[in-house]
């Protein structure tokens, strides 16, 4: 019984495609798609892979920079030239929704995925950071999510053997049911050894290496109904499980492979697994592939073509090598006890042909699937929300100064958003690799010793999401400025950023207004700090329904920034070293409490303007700090951020148990 067009359109909708997108598919194929082809388009044209509701604005972000080796979007991660023939690959990504479902595995697979994006380019990950946002700490749900996420990040990262050198944890009611788990990884690669995610050369073999493929990550009603195996849904794994041990083997094996001239291209299997890697690697060069799905090593019996194509099982890579070196590749993976199987070969007709037991299961033009190719691009309308005006009109001078200031100080210093997060980061190995220079010298940024040369690398991850809520454009500019400030205080010069844009539903005009404002703010700040955007990811639909009403989380454009220290001795800590040192405040203090933790948590004033912020002034302050450090006049430097001057001074005193005496009038 031939499925009628109306039935196909119904299935397309179940798969999350619009009717109009169904007709576009028919134009690409100049025929109607079968179910497997429809499911391929549904994942490749999903928000997650195609960025259809955000790419139009992402393109406006500054991508050019003095030392950019690879520009945003060209490869799996951004790549910055750090001199002496070395490049730095770094990226940040979100795993918010899987972590809300199963915190431990959601966070663990997030760490696994972001590290694969780095070593797929031939770079060895040398440091990790993470940015976590949870609901209020009083809720049992928050405690459950926090415990699972921290243990998941720790267990995966510690076993994988890459130190966590920085990060942030914030608590706010807006994240009560939808936590944000953003993981960042930083790797080093020789500039002549960069591996591209590409495929070319008719007849060259295509391999899948690493873990076996299971029915992981195939969700949604459309698939469940299609599952006709006898034990039906109870063999659909509810959650993907990460295996850090397998990932470590995959890292070592792929880096050994990356050294070989016969390697043509490599890409890790992230969202949409085999479908995404085969299409993106082919589209890059106008190549195509014949893929024999029955050759893919599977973990579960009688998997169907669409299940193998869409599976998001972890710890797998797609590799294309020159014909004739098949046994060389297999020897490397055997050494590391990893599976490797040839599942097809490259063609030059730009078409992806997927066979199952020599029967054609699906045939689609690679170009039509990918971002920048046939994937649709949409414009969304946006509108200023009512709360914005109220926030701008708020007069912070109306707040009466409380009598007992000591009690206010104690309240702030103990507030979960300000107090030390040692109880979290002590569960991460921050020292493996013996490169972390901040183990015995706390600093505003993680500082990594580049053993390969005389330099060091600074890195940080920041976002004051409350400021972005109060004023998206200014708040996002502040997020970039704060990241740059941390890099400058650590002794480095800001170099480039990656970003993880966590927002609500793009079809809600007020949410999209927050998104557009953030992009504009980031563009201004990145241009003036000369820190181009090297890539990252977008996560929409972060929201919770309270009393039936859907509410977006705070708009959170998390900024991951790296900076270079030309000499290791420039590394600067944030702690007072000994009594008698002079304390200077650089930059004009504004006598105002707008947007402060004090106003928000102590006085419970939710709406106000952001703190005063002038981009040119900020730039001036930072270049001054950078000069002072290079003149070796600075013993320690610390930025004034959450909690203001008082909290910054306390933080400078803790490590060496020192106090401070300041003259407020000066």
């Amino acid at each position: 019984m031939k499925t009628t067009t109306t039935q196909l359109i119904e299935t397309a909708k179940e798969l999350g495609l619009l009717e109009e997108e169904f007709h576009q598919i028919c134009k690409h194929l100049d025929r109607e798609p079968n179910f497997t082809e429809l499911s391929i388009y549904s994942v490749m044209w999903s928000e997650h892979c195609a960025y259809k509701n955000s790419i139009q604005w992402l393109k406006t972000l500054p991508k050019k920079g003095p030392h950019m080796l690879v520009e945003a979007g060209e490869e799996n991660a951004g790549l910055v030239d750090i001199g002496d023939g070395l490049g730095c690959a770094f990226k940040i990504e979100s795993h918010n929704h899987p972590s809300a479902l199963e915190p431990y595995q959601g966070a663990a697979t997030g760490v696994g995925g972001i590290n694969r994006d780095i070593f797929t380019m031939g770079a060895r990950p040398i440091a990790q950071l993470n940015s976590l946002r949870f609901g209020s700490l009083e809720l049992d749900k928050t405690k459950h999510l926090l415990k699972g996420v921290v243990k998941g990040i720790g267990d995966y990262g510690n076993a994988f053997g890459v130190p966590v050198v920085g990060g942030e944890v914030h608590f706010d009611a807006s994240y009560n049911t939808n936590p944000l788990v953003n993981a960042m990884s930083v790797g080093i690669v020789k500039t002549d050894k960069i591996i591209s995610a590409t495929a070319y050369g008719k007849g060259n073999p295509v391999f899948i290496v690493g873990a076996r493929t299971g029915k992981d990550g195939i969700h949604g009603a459309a698939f469940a109904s299609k599952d006709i195996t006898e034990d039906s849904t109870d063999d659909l794994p509810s959650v993907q499980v990460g295996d850090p041990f397998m990932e470590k083997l995959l890292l070592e094996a792929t880096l050994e492979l990356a050294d070989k001239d016969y390697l043509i291209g490599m890409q890790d299997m992230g969202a949409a697994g085999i479908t995404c890697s085969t299409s993106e690697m082919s589209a890059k060069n106008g190549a195509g592939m014949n893929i024999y799905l029955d050759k893919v090593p599977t973990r579960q019996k009688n998997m169907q073509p669409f299940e193998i194509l869409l599976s998001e099982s972890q710890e797998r890579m797609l590799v294309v090598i020159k014909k004739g070196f098949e046994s060389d590749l297999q020897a490397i993976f055997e050494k590391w006890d990893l599976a490797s199987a040839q599942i097809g070969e490259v063609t030059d007709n730009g078409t992806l042909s997927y066979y199952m037991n020599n029967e054609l299961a699906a045939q689609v033009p690679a170009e039509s699937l990918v971002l920048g190719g046939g994937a649709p691009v949409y414009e969304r309308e946006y509108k200023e929300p009512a709360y914005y005006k109220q926030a701008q009109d708020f007069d912070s001078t109306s707040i009466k100064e409380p009598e007992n200031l000591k009690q206010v100080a104690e309240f702030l210093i103990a507030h979960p958003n300000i107090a030390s997060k040692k109880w979290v980061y002590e569960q991460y190995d921050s020292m493996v690799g013996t490169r972390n220079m901040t183990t015995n010298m706390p600093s505003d940024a993680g500082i990594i010793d580049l053993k390969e040369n005389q330099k060091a690398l600074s890195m940080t991850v920041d976002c004051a999401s409350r400021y972005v809520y109060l004023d998206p454009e200014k708040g996002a500019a502040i997020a970039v400025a704060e990241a740059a400030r941390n890099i400058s205080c650590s002794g480095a010069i800001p170099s480039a950023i990656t970003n993880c844009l966590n927002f609500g539903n793009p079809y809600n005009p007020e949410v999209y207004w927050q998104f557009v404002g953030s992009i504009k703010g980031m563009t201004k700040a990145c241009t003036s700090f000369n820190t181009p955007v090297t890539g990252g990811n977008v996560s929409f639909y972060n929201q919770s329904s309270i009393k039936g009403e859907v509410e977006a989380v705070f708009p959170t454009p998390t900024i991951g920034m790296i900076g270079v220290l030309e000499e290791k001795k420039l590394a600067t800590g944030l702690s007072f070293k000994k009594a008698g040192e002079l304390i200077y405040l650089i930059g004009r203090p504004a006598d105002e409490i707008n947007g402060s933790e004090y106003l928000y948590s102590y006085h419970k004033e939710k709406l106000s303007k952001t703190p005063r912020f002038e981009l040119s002034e900020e730039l001036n302050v930072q270049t001054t700090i950078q000069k002072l450090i290079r003149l070796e006049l600075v013993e320690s430097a610390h930025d004034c951020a959450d909690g203001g001057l008082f909290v910054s001074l306390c933080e400078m005193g803790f490590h060496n148990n020192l106090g401070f005496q300041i003259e407020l009038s000066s």
Partner: protein
Amino acid sequence: MMLYDLEITNFSSMKFGVVTFPGSNCDTDIQDALHLLDQKVEMLWHKDTDLKDCDAIFIPGGFSYGDYLRSGAIAQFSPIMSSIKAFAQQGGIVMGICNGFQILCESGLLPGTLLHNSNQKFICTNAFIKAEQQNTLLTTESKDVVLKIPIAHAEGRYFIDQKGLEDLKKNDQILFKYCDAKGQINTQNNPNGSIENIAGVCNITKNVFGMMPHPERACDALLKNTDGARILKNLISSVQEIKA
């Protein structure tokens, strides 16, 4: 703290082996630390059996076989371990650090076992340790000295039965104990619940050593802590004397 510069020459023929298991991730850290101390290093793959006539063998930290089942439970069966057992039985010097200590206990080369930390969490921090005695190749130079050495583990709680504990004391096999900055040994500064704060032990013939803290993570002055170099230099000079 001034870097303790025990006089060591680069005895040209001396060579140290460092084993790499699938899942080891501190093997290159030990290699880098030994290079900082001007020593020759040979990396040994767990599937081989040739120890390439190294003078002493390091079994590094990490998560061999993902720490699955029990830390070190699976690594003990790698081909290299049979050569290391024979090497140790003939008096060869073997040092296991963190996962290496767990592997030596699982393979029976060291007494006792390492259990999950009492707070059921992974812990990474600086710990203070003190040598229990001065008559092993590792501790001759650390009389009444408190050393700040990093720890990073989830299964670091040393356990041994009562009889075994008495033997350890009788034969002077306890290497280090966790203490505070001033050298006080008590439960507050026991990071993982180890019996009597034990951080490291050696075998009865004092040629196989195991400790949970990572000396190789405190050897580079750039990281502002070189207490670990003191322990490794002590071992290097002891091996030198045996070779001389």
